C-alpha cells in the first residue's frame, strides 16, 4: 500500500515512485502539477475501503 493511501498528503518522492512503478517518467514539475488531484483521488478512493462489501467483484456481467 502506498503511503498516500493512509495519509492525506502525498510527497514528491512518493509520486515519483508511484509514477515509476506505473511505467511513467514524469518530471517533478509534471508530478507537482497533478499532486492536488492525486491527493483528492486517493481521498475519494479511501471511501471504497470504508464500504462494507461481501460481494464478489463484477467481472463479465449481465450478458444474456
Amino acid at each position: 500500500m502506498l503511503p498516500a493511501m493512509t495519509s492525506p498528503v502525498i510527497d514528491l518522492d512518493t509520486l515519483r515512485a508511484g509514477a515509476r512503478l506505473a511505467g511513467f517518467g514524469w518530471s517533478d514539475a509534471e508530478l507537482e502539477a497533478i499532486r492536488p488531484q492525486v491527493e483528492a483521488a486517493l481521498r475519494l478512493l479511501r471511501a471504497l475501503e470504508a464500504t462494507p462489501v461481501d460481494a464478489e467483484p463484477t467481472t463479465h456481467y449481465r450478458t444474456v
Partner: protein
Amino acid sequence: MPDLFWASMTELAGLIATKAVSPVEVTRVHLERIAAHDPGLKSYITICADGALAAAREAESALMGGRPLGPLHGVPYALKDLYDTAGIRTTGGSKILADRVPAADATVVRRLAEAGAILLGKLNMVEFAYGPEGFNPHYGDVRNPWDRTTHRLTGGSSSGSGAAVAAGLAPGTLGSDTGGSIRIPASLCGITGLKPTYGRVSRGGVLPLAWSMDHVGPMTRTAADCALMLTAMAGYDPADSSTSVLPVPDYRVALTGDIKGLRVGLLRAFFLDGATPEVRAAVEQAARTLAAGGAVVDEVNLAQMASTAPAALAIVGSEALAYHATNLRTRAADYDPEVARRLKVAAFIGGQHYVRAQQVRALVRADVDAALAHRDVLLAPSTPMTAPALQERQVTLGDGPSPVRPALIRFTQPFNLSGHPACSVPCGFTSGGLPVGMQIVGRPFDEATVLRAADAFQRLTDFHARRPVLG
C-alpha cells in the same frame, strides 16, 4: 416544405416513404442548416456533404425504382466522432487520431446504413470521451443552442451530438455514455437520449473510454425516434463480446401511450435532494404528470449511491489509462491537458482499488435491481442543474456547493455501473429558458418499457417540441 430540419426521424421516414419529400431534399436542407449555423455552434468535426448527397441520390433512385426500403430510408443522421466510418476520418475528438481513417464501419454504423440512414457527418466531442462538460481544445468548445448571449455548456462527452439535434443540424445522432455522456448533453440541450442496457447495442468499431462502462445509444428529439434507431441498431454482434443474444423487439410497438398502472419509483435521497430547486420542481411535476396519466408513483431510495463516484473513478480511470498508456508515454503533449491530467492521476489507482470498485459495483447493481423488483421504472433528474456557463467552475446544488464536473455525472454514472437502461427526456424549462432533463431508468433489457414511459410523457407534455432560437 418549411422547417424540414425540425421534422422527427419518424416523420421524415414517413414523408420519404410516401414520396412527399425526396431524400435529396431532406439531406440538402440539413446540409444548408449545418452550413448556416455550425460555424457558431461547432457541433461537427467533419461534414460529409458529398457522401451524404450521393447516398441521398441513391436512396431516391431506390425509392423511385420500387426497391425495398429500410425503416430509416433516406433519413439523415450524424455520429459522435468515435464511431469508425470506412474512408472517413475518426478522430475521437483528438489531435492524436486526427488523421486516422478506418477501413471499416462500426457495427452500428453498418446497421444504420442497412436501414437506409444517411450520414451527414462526424460530431464534436470531448477528447476520447473523457469528460462531461463538452470542452475540446482541438475542435472548439461546442456551444449550447439554448442561450444566444452566454456561452453555456452542452454537456459531454457527446457534446456535438446534443447540440446538433437541439439546433436542427441533424434529426438524430449517436452518442456514447460511460458516465452519462448521452444523458448529460441530452439534459442540458433539451433532447431525448437513451443509454441502453449494457450488452444491448454493439460497441464493435467504437473507440473505447472504459470497456466495462461504455454504452452506445441514440440521441434524438423524441422517444419514438430513439425507438426507431434502437430497433435498427441493437442485437448480438460477434465483434463485441458483451452483446446479448436476446432477440431485439421492434421498440416502436411498445409506444402505445398507455401508462395506466405503470409503477414508477421517484428517487428522492441523493437524486431529488441533490438537485437545484428548479430541477427538483420540474421532476416532481413530471411525476405528477405521469400519475395523472395513470401511472402509480411512489418514492424510493437507493442505498449505495455514496460509493458510486469512487467506484466509477477507479474503474474508468484504470480502464482508460490501460487504453492510453502508450500514447501517454510517447505523445503526452498532444493530449488535451485536462484529459492528460485525468489519465496521469489514474496511474495512482491501485489494483486493489479497481477490484474493490467492481465489488461495489455488484452492490450498486443489486440496489437498483431491488428498487425495480416491484416497480417498472425509476425517475430521477438527469443532471442536478441546467447548463452552466462556460466559465462556471462551481455550482450550488440541493445539498451544497459542488465543482461542475462531479455534479454533471452524479446522477447518471450509477446506471453505468449497474448497466440498467436509462433515457433522458426534457421535463421542463427554467425561468431563464434552459431545459431540464429527467431520467427514466428501467430493468435490464427492458428498453421497451423505458421508451413507452418516455413516449407517453412526451404525449402528455410539449417540452420536447420546443426549439431554441439560433442567432
